[in-house]
């Protein structure tokens, strides 16, 4: 765990302690379970975003995708009565295909990630609303899918299964990002795509793969979100979720220029964001201030991080000078 991640973890614990001191309900099992469920849902989404950000790209369409894919999933199993495992696989494949198309447009046609995914944001939201005729997608009375509900919204030993899913995905993706050849390529491309290309890396394929991973994880979280809310109004479902994901990555130490960040960082970033949401509820802060609190904390976090970097660089310089002065008579 890097020093940055450790700092973030300490911040999370301190905020948690303060909130508990003011309102002990923070530590009630029901509150912890609810919060960790949300951490699971948003964490899966944020890991996907992180893979794109590490390449220096951005994926703005994930919020709309959560709405579109969630709507489709509920429609498939509730209205079209498809077997849920089949619908599950279809949605994941659809997420992968959309990710591939984004990656293809960005690498082969040289469009900017911001533009491509901004168009995606608009298109998928529009399609989702059209698909339900601006209505709501939900289950009929008495309809249930015990296994699916257990996997997505159930609990094991009191721990939400969505949170467990996040842990499993996080471990796998940690290995991919920090230990695999592919992960090294991602960092290299994020640092300097040209130089990576000149080293013989097929940069286009690697970047496309990052968008596919993002698409798959977004699709997975879309299913989780759908099963959590159980009914979706495509006009508002998942709105701003892309910003939650980006915020989690930035809080976790990712640079939007690419090539920087750790998987633990993005998880901790998600945890802190959800903790702040919870804080707003528990401390009786008007919920309309929700976004303002989040934005303020992110700004402070980024500022502290940068100032800390400046401070350390200065201290290193001073230490080196001192050594030099001490060693000067020897010259």
């Amino acid at each position, binding site marked *: 765990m890097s020093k940055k991640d450790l700092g973030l973890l300490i911040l999370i614990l301190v905020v948690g302690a303060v909130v508990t001191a003011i309102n002990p309900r923070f530590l009630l099992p029901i509150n912890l379970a609810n919060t960790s469920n949300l951490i699971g849902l948003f964490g899966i989404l944020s890991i996907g975003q992180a893979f794109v950000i590490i390449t220096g790209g951005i994926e703005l369409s994930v919020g709309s995708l959560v709405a579109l894919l969630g709507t489709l999933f509920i429609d498939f199993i509730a209205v079209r009565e498809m077997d849920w495992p089949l619908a599950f696989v279809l949605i994941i494949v659809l997420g992968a295909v959309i990710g591939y198309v984004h990656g293809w447009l960005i690498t082969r046609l040289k469009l900017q990630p911001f533009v491509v995914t901004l168009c995606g944001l608009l298109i998928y939201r529009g399609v989702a609303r059209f698909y339900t005729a601006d209505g709501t997608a939900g289950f009929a009375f008495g309809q249930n899918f015990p296994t699916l509900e257990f996997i997505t919204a159930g609990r094991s030993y009191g721990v939400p299964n969505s949170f467990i899913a996040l842990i499993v995905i996080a471990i796998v993706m940690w290995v991919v990002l920090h230990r695999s050849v592919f992960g*090294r390529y991602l960092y290299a491309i994020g*640092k300097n795509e040209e130089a990576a290309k000149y080293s013989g*890396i097929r940069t286009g394929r690697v970047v496309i793969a990052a968008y596919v991973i993002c698409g798959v994880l977004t699709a997975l979280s879309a299913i989780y979100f759908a099963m959590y809310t159980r009914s979706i109004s495509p006009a508002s479902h998942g709105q701003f979720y892309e910003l939650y994901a980006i915020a989690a990555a930035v809080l976790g130490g990712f640079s939007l220029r690419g090539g920087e960040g750790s998987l633990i960082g993005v998880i901790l970033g998600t945890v802190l964001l959800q903790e702040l949401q919870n804080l707003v509820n528990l401390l009786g802060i008007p919920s309309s201030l929700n976004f303002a609190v989040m934005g303020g904390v992110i700004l402070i976090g980024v500022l502290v991080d940068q100032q800390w970097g400046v401070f350390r660089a200065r201290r290193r310089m001073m230490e080196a000078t001192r050594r030099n002065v001490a060693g000067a008579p020897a010259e």
Partner: protein
Amino acid sequence: MNYGAMNYSDTSFAQSTTAPFLSLEAVRKTYPGVVALDGFSMEVRPGEVIGLVGENGAGKSTLMKILGGVTRPDSGTVTVDGVAHVGLTVEASIGSGIAFVHQELNLFENLDVAANIFFGREPLKAGPLRLVDRARLREMVAPLLKRVGANFSADAPVATLSLAQQQMVEIAKALSIKARLVILDEPTSSLPIAETEKLLDVIKGLRAEGISVIFISHRLHEVERVADRVVVLRDGMLAGTLPKSEINHDQMVKLMIGRMLKEREKAAEAGRAPGGVALSVNAVRTSAYPDHPVDLDVRRGEILGLAGLVGSGRTELARVLFGIDERLGGSVALDRKALNVGSAADAVANGIFLVPEDRKLTGILLDLSIAQNISLPNLPAHAKRLLVSASAELATAEKQKKDLGIKAPSVLTRTGTLSGGNQQKVVLAKWLAMNPKVMILDEPTRGIDIGAKAEIYGLMRALADAGVAVLMISSDMEEVIGVSDRIAVMHEGQISGILDRDDFSQENVLLLAVGKSPKLAHAVGGAQ
């Protein structure tokens, strides 16, 4: 001052009786851990061209920073135009007429020439809108361009100019602030022969106007041609000063490194019988000259120098062979088998490697460690089941670091902190760790100091001796002639001729570079 005719007389304004424009006395500057300048003194008289040479790390850049007012010396005085300063400030430096033309040009490529020259000092029209007076601007720019002998117009976008032309814009900018001392930092390192000539002419023109010049260069034969006096820096101290009559290559090198150098001669003497054709380029056309096909054979065991003017299509050829650019026509064969290279990854898989022209942008990743840079092109070989094996990676890097003599605290050091020469060795190391068949080097020693240069020549020769076909693109005439076994010269996208060792001469290379016939020792058979 007469802005019109440039008088290229070689008689300098410098006379020992004139008061110096600039003088430094016992200047000392230390950084944490290093003494950058140690009691350094020098003076520059009006209209004098000083050649400032020294290896990288000798203290040249610190000296430049002091003259530019960016850093203050710890002790010593800097006297400019009779005024003594303990430490110059940026304002004082500019105010007293010191102008810099840096190796990396500071121009806005998206703006035109005139806008660049008077950037931030544009003449304005009267009125509250403060609009730029474009007519007046052009009037002001015209004489400046004439003084530097520009062959481009004031409204040409800088992006369309060649490197030499861009340097002329920088010099015109210096003249526009009524510069009395122009400091040129490695101005010719990226210029081809003919353009270098133009720049040297401009320097002579400045001298004729009574403007002093400090000319910093690793290209010693250019220093030899243009300098009135040479000042040699070594380890932050004045290693010696050479008056005009004593300026020659060997003397400078001796003072720079404190010994004579033999490596280059050694690299040249090999010239053993080369093997068969490794890389065969047939009628290949590139984006630079889509109508001009290139034919070229590179043999196993030879260093083929590729000379020519900048813009003659050499770099584009290298990029096509390495799969970065699309091949517009023709065919390429490796070991007589047709080869279709669609990407750099294909080239690498076939053992065709490129050491690119722009080391920092494309050669290495500055933020990665030495070890990570070296393993990058061959990462799957350093991995078990797709997971990177740190130990395999370190082993490769340690071996290369030792073999190539990369000077760094450890292989985990960030490559961005290394000197240019050591960075270039890392670029070479990543390819040497694999099995090169064809090695293409584009300006392999640009901006690298003499010691490291010699080592890189040695490595190239060792590669050739091991049977690798080496194609070296170089604009440095000394290098092309000293290192190559054969020289191919490009002119407007085509090979205008190939010289064998007996016919090597600056004149022949130049003649071919401008598309004329060389003077051959044997009866002529044209280009072979």
